[in-house]
C-alpha cells in the first residue's frame, strides 16, 4: 500500500482528485496511449492537458459535470449516476451502464 501511494504521488494522475479515472477509460475502451487519451479528454472538457492533473481545476469541472467527487455528501451525483454523466460527456460506452439499462428496462 505504501508503494502504491508513492507511485501515485510521484507519477500518477490522481484518479478522482483530477481526471485520472476519465483518461483511464480512454486507455481501456479505445486502447489510446497516454498522450492521445489526455488530449481526447481535455478537448471534451475544454481544459488543457496539464489542467487534467490539477485537483483545483478538475474538482470544479467534475462538480459542474456530475462526474463524481472525492467527498460526495448529499445532493450530488454518486456512483452509477456519475457514470451516466461521464459516458455522455466523453461519448463513451460504459459496460456496467449498458447492463444496468438492459436490466432496468431502459435500453
Amino acid at each position, binding site marked *: 500500500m505504501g508503494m502504491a501511494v*508513492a*507511485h501515485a504521488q510521484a*507519477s500518477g494522475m490522481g*484518479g478522482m482528485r483530477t481526471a485520472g479515472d476519465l483518461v*483511464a477509460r480512454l486507455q481501456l475502451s479505445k486502447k489510446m*496511449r497516454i498522450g492521445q*487519451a489526455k488530449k481526447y479528454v481535455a478537448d471534451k472538457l475544454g481544459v488543457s492537458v496539464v489542467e487534467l492533473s490539477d485537483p483545483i481545476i478538475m474538482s470544479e469541472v467534475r462538480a459542474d459535470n456530475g462526474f463524481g467527487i472525492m467527498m460526495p455528501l448529499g445532493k450530488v451525483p454518486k*456512483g*452509477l449516476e456519475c457514470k451516466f454523466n461521464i459516458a455522455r460527456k466523453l461519448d463513451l460506452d460504459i459496460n456496467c451502464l449498458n447492463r444496468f439499462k438492459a436490466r432496468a428496462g431502459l435500453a
Partner: protein
Amino acid sequence: MSNIVTRMGDGSMLEMSEKELREDIEAGIEEAVDKGGVPPLNQDEIEYLVELFKRKERIVGVEMGNEVILTYDAATLKIKRHSLFEDRVNSLAIYERLLGADTTELCHVDYSYKMLKPIVSYEAGTLEQALSVTHAPMFYGAMPNLGLYTQPDGPFPNPMELLPQGKIKEGRAAYDEMVASAVEDIVFIAESMWEAGADGINLDTVGASGDPDFKASLLAVEKLTAKYPDMAIEMGMAGEFVLGMHGEMYHEGQRLAGLYPTEQLKLAEKAGVAVFGPVVNTNNTESTPWNLARTIALIKPCSEAATIPVHANMGMGVGAVPVTDYPPVDIVSRVSKAMVELCRLDGL
C-alpha cells in the same frame, strides 16, 4: 568521495561516489544489451539517471503534464494482507476516494482463475455492487497460474516430475492439457465478470509457469476478444523473459520460450490485449542504479514499439523497485519518475 546515497536491490542503504554510480548505470545497461538484445541508453539518458540519483530530495516526481495512469493488481487483496478486514466494495471506494486511484481491481484472496469457478456467482454479485457505488474503471483480476493444474492440486501429471525421469513427451503432453484447461477457466470467469459489468479483465503474472502459462493467456485473450470485441484486457507479465518450461510451445509461429518484453508485447497486441504490463525483475545483489538502468534499457524498446498503452509493472521486486515489503519512498519515487519519463510509459 562517497556522497551519493541510494539503495541496493534489497532496499538496504548504500553510499557511492559519482564514478561508482556511473559504473553501475553502465553495467546495468550492458547487462540488458547483452541478455535482451536491446539498444543501449544514449548519453542524455545516462546523464538523466546520474542527475536523478545525485538529487538530495527524499521524494521526486515527474514533470507536471507527464503524469500517467495507475492500474493495481490484486487491489482488494492488498487491504486484506494488512489484516484490515474491510469489505471489498468499501476497499475499492477507499482506493478511489482516499488513495486517488485512477483504476481499481476487484479480486478474490485466492488470486487464480481456476479457484474462482465454484464461487463465480458470488464474485459477479460483489462486482455489480462495487460498480454501482464507485466511479473509476474497475478490473476483475486473477492469475492464469498453471501451477494449480498438476496433481495433487489438479488433474494432470506434473511435468516437473516427468521431465527429470526423461519423460519429455509425456511432460509436454501434460502441459498441452493444462493449457486447454486453463483457457477454459480464464474464458469462463472473464465472460462472467464482463457480463456483470466489469470495465476490464486483468490477466496478472502471466508466464509465471513459463511458456504454457503465456500460451494459455494468449489463447484466452483471442477467444474473449473474438466474442466480446469491446472487452478491455490487461496482460501483466511475470518476468522479463518467458521461461521455457515446455520449450517447444509456439504461438503465431513464434517460439514463446525466451521472449523478452518487446516480443511479448507484439504477441499480446495481436491477440487483442488493451493494456500490456512488461516486467523486469529486480536483482537484489545489485544497486538500484544498476537495476533501473537495466530495466529502462529493456522496457524502452517495448514502449516505443507499442500501439496499445504500456503499464510497466513497478511493484515490489520488479521494475527496479527493491525486493522488500517496505519499499522506501526515495527509491520508489526515483524509479517511478525515470521509468515514466525515459520509457515514455502510459501507466504503471
